[in-house]
């Protein structure tokens, strides 16, 4: 992961501040930085979103393609994740440097979506055993300033909300050969319900307390973090300890409670922003990359 070199004095300063619930930029331990979300930024995709969390910049594109369903689940479509850590984020990611981090993030995304309730995969089925929709979710890391997992999960949720999958019908002749017909109306599409899509909340342990949404400097002071993936109803779909330190069992229970609280607020504000953006309709001002 991108890291920044901190002196011991700076680490002590950050740790003492966190004990008093005061972080370097004035936030409390459970406050997120200002998040900017914009959907529909890339026109060639079925859905896309861009999220800026402080200086962390993530771009997610979702492309829906038709494929064969998996053998064990013939009535469902599936999602494929790919994370690309671009060399723009830090020089460490040049060449194959970012591959390890990219695989780790992709594996975490597979894990958090690996249950029946996050995305209704049956809506992605076109005809059982033969055709289904495969959603290729591609995450691009443009800039890294700490707290990658949270930003990526917010961006994935926004992109899935924005995804429009064209309606397709399978027609059968008398001879039995099947033909796929795409609907003529470009606005006739299926939308996914993102009610139960989880968001990741990363809690970094600094000293005796834990903080939400750590910056790069705070991540350098923390030896262990807990990654909790929580839905808007408070259901946890993934739990993972990250980092080279160990955690006290009591801190783990406290961190899980915090993640539930913080997760609810995060989901509520994200839903309201996404609906507001959608309600502005096609005439809204697109900020894009120059804003």
């Amino acid at each position, binding site marked *: 992961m991108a890291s920044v070199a901190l002196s011991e004095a700076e680490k002590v300063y950050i740790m003492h501040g966190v004990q008093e619930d005061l972080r370097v930029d004035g936030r409390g331990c459970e406050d997120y930085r200002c998040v900017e979300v914009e959907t529909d930024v890339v026109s060639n995709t079925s859905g896309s979103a861009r999220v800026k969390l402080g200086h962390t910049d993530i771009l997610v594109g979702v492309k829906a393609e038709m494929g064969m369903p998996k053998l064990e689940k013939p009535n469902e479509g599936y999602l494929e994740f790919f994370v690309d850590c671009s060399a723009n984020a830090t020089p460490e990611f040049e060449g194959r440097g970012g591959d390890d981090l990219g695989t780790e993030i992709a594996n975490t995304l597979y894990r958090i979506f690996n249950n029946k309730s996050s995305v209704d995969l049956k809506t992605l089925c076109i005809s059982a055993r033969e055709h289904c929709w495969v959603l290729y979710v591609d995450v691009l890391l443009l800039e890294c300033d700490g707290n990658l997992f949270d930003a990526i999960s917010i961006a994935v949720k926004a992109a899935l909300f924005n995804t429009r999958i064209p309606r397709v019908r399978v027609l059968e002749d008398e001879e039995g050969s099947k033909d796929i017909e795409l609907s003529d109306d470009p606005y006739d599409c299926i939308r996914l319900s993102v009610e139960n899509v989880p968001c990741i909340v990363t809690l970094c342990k600094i000293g005796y307390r834990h903080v939400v949404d750590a910056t790069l400097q705070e991540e350098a002071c923390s030896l262990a973090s807990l990654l909790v993936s929580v839905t808007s109803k408070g259901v*946890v779909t993934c739990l993972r300890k990250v980092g080279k330190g160990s955690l006290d069992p009591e801190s783990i229970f406290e961190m899980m409670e915090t993640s539930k609280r913080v997760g609810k607020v995060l989901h509520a504000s994200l839903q309201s922003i996404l609906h507001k953006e959608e309600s502005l309709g096609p005439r809204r001002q697109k900020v894009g990359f120059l804003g």
Partner: protein
Amino acid sequence: MPGDHRRIRGPEESQPPQLYAADEEDAPAARDPTRLRPVYARAGLLSQAKGSAYLEAGGTKVLCAVSGPRQAEGGERGGGPAGAGGEAPAALRGRLLCDFRRAPFAGRRRRAPQGGGEERELALALQEALEPAVRLGRYPRAQLEVSALLLEDGGSALAAALTAAALALADAGVEMYDLVVGCGLSLAPGPASTWLLDPTRLEEERAAAGLTVALMPVLNQVAGLLGSGEGGLTESWAEAVRLGLEGCQRLYPVLQQCLVRAARRKGAAP
């Protein structure tokens, strides 16, 4: 690896016949949710490895080997302030490289070993759980290689691999703060189900959620945690973590005895 199509004429992809069979297996029998399967652990069995361990729990068989310390590739320069106890500064600390491999015949379907994906994720989980226990500051500019091979998957494979890896590190004489003990849990599907400790393969396949906990028993610190699925609210997961930690504490005396026996064997050998 792609098959040899010039000499072996066959389909590109093959499936086992069980996939097309009707689902005849009965639901796993009801059992005490806190039972741990009897464990057989033996350390110091591979002659070519610095340290090794074999662990068998129910149907799960894991073999782990440790080699090193040897010189780390891509040495880093410079240092920072030295840590306490004469340890190397942060930039010169040793590295732990973990590798997790599943034998192709380990599960029900034959799986060729792949580079990325699940094995990479479990290797990372192994590394994150073992790092808190190993005193890497005492091995500056060196790397320790831990490789775990899963011979048969009978449920809670990652937990068994974690325990075997910690035993192998101890057998290799690597300086550690404490052993790491792993325990697996799973939640059966259904509205009123409880978490089951140390699930079998059948219970794991039908589970709605799974969790692996790694504990350092003497220090009482959680070294690793990896779980996913529809486990419900945080209270349910917290209960699962508690159950897992209790299971780890119960397993610890068995591992202590295993290491004592291995040390005696080494001492007695001419």
